[in-house]
C-alpha cells in the first residue's frame, strides 16, 4: 500500500494483513554529487514502487527517510531509529530499509529491521521497457527475500 489516503483507508480496515513496512532511505547532496544523488533516488523510487505493486496487500510503502549526506552519522541514525520505534509500535512485524547508499551496510546491525542494499543502476539512458525489465529483475530477487522473511516468522 502506498502513502495515499485511499490506501490508508484500506489499511485501517485490514490492518492484520499488512505486517510489513518498507522505508526507502535517500541521501541528498548538492554540488558535484547532486546528479548521483538524484539518480539513486530515482532508482530506489522506481524499485520500491514496483515492489509495492507486487505486494500491495501485505506491505506499506512509507515515505522515504531523507537526510543530507553531509550530516553527522549519529543524527541520521538517531532520526531513523525514531522512525523505527514508531513503526514497530504500530504493529508492523517486519521492517525493511531499501537504499543504494553503501554506508548503511556497515551499520546494519544497529537497526532492528532488515537492510537491503542495492547498487543504483543508471536508468537515464534506458527506454521505458528496458527500465521495466531491469527493475523487474532486481525486484525478483527481493521478492524471495521477502517471502523468506515472512516464512521465518510464521
Amino acid at each position, binding site marked *: 500500500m502506498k502513502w495515499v489516503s485511499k490506501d490508508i483507508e*484500506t489499511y485501517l480496515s485490514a490492518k492484520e*494483513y499488512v505486517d510489513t513496512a518498507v522505508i526507502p532511505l535517500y541521501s541528498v547532496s548538492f554540488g558535484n554529487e547532486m546528479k548521483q544523488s538524484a539518480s539513486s533516488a530515482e532508482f530506489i523510487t522506481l524499485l520500491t514502487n514496483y515492489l509495492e505493486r507486487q*505486494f*500491495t*496487500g*501485505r506491505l506499506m510503502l512509507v515515505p522515504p527517510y531523507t537526510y543530507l549526506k553531509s550530516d553527522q552519522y549519529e543524527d541520521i541514525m538517531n532520526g531513523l531509529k525514531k522512525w523505527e520505534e514508531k513503526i514497530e509500535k504500530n504493529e508492523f512485524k517486519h521492517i525493511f530499509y531499501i537504499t543504494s547508499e553503501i554506508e548503511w551496510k556497515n551499520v546494519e546491525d544497529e537497526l532492528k529491521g532488515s537492510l537491503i542494499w542495492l547498487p543504483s543502476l543508471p536508468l537515464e539512458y534506458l527506454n*521505458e521497457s528496458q527500465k521495466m525489465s531491469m527493475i523487474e529483475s532486481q525486484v525478483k530477487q527481493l521478492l524471495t527475500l521477502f517471502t523468506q522473511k515472512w516464512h521465518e516468522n510464521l
Partner: protein
Amino acid sequence: MSKHRVSRRQFLSYTLTGVGGFMAAGMLMPMVRFAIDPVLKAEAGGDFIATPLKIKDITAEPQRVDFTFEQKDAWYTSEVTNTAWVYKDEQDNIVALSPVCKHLGCTVGWASSEDHPDQFFCPCHFGRYTKDGTNVKGTPPLAPLDVYPIQEKDGLLYLGKAEPRTKEA
C-alpha cells in the same frame, strides 16, 4: 434621477453576491462532473490496448503478458504497465485474467506455489484461484479474478479494461 438609486453599499453587496455565485458555480461544476463522470466513462470505455502477444501464440498454459499505455493522473502523465495472464480454455476461447488479487491487491502468479502447480497463487496471504480465476474457498480472496475483455486485431491480442467477473461460478 430615479428613486431607485443604488447606494454604494447595495452596489457592493450585489456585485459580491454575483462574484460569489460565479465562484460557487466554478466550484460546483467540477464536482457535478466528477459525480457524473464515471457514468460517462463507462459508456465510452471502448479503449483497447495492443499487447505484444500474437493470437496464434496463445496456448492452454497461462502466460504473462505486459502491456503499456499512457495514464493521466491529475496533471501528471505517466506510462503504466499492466499485466494479464492469457490462455485458451477447453472451448478454445481466449481468457485474459487480471493478476490483481481480490483480497488486498497483491500480484498473483500462475503456478508460483509448488504445492499448487495448476492454480494462481498470491504470495501475500496465500490466496489461490483455479485456472479460470475462481477463488479457492478457504483462502482469503472472496471474489474471482477480474477479466479483461479481449479483441483481435492484425493477429495481435488487444485488451480492454479489466472487469469483475459477472457470472458467478
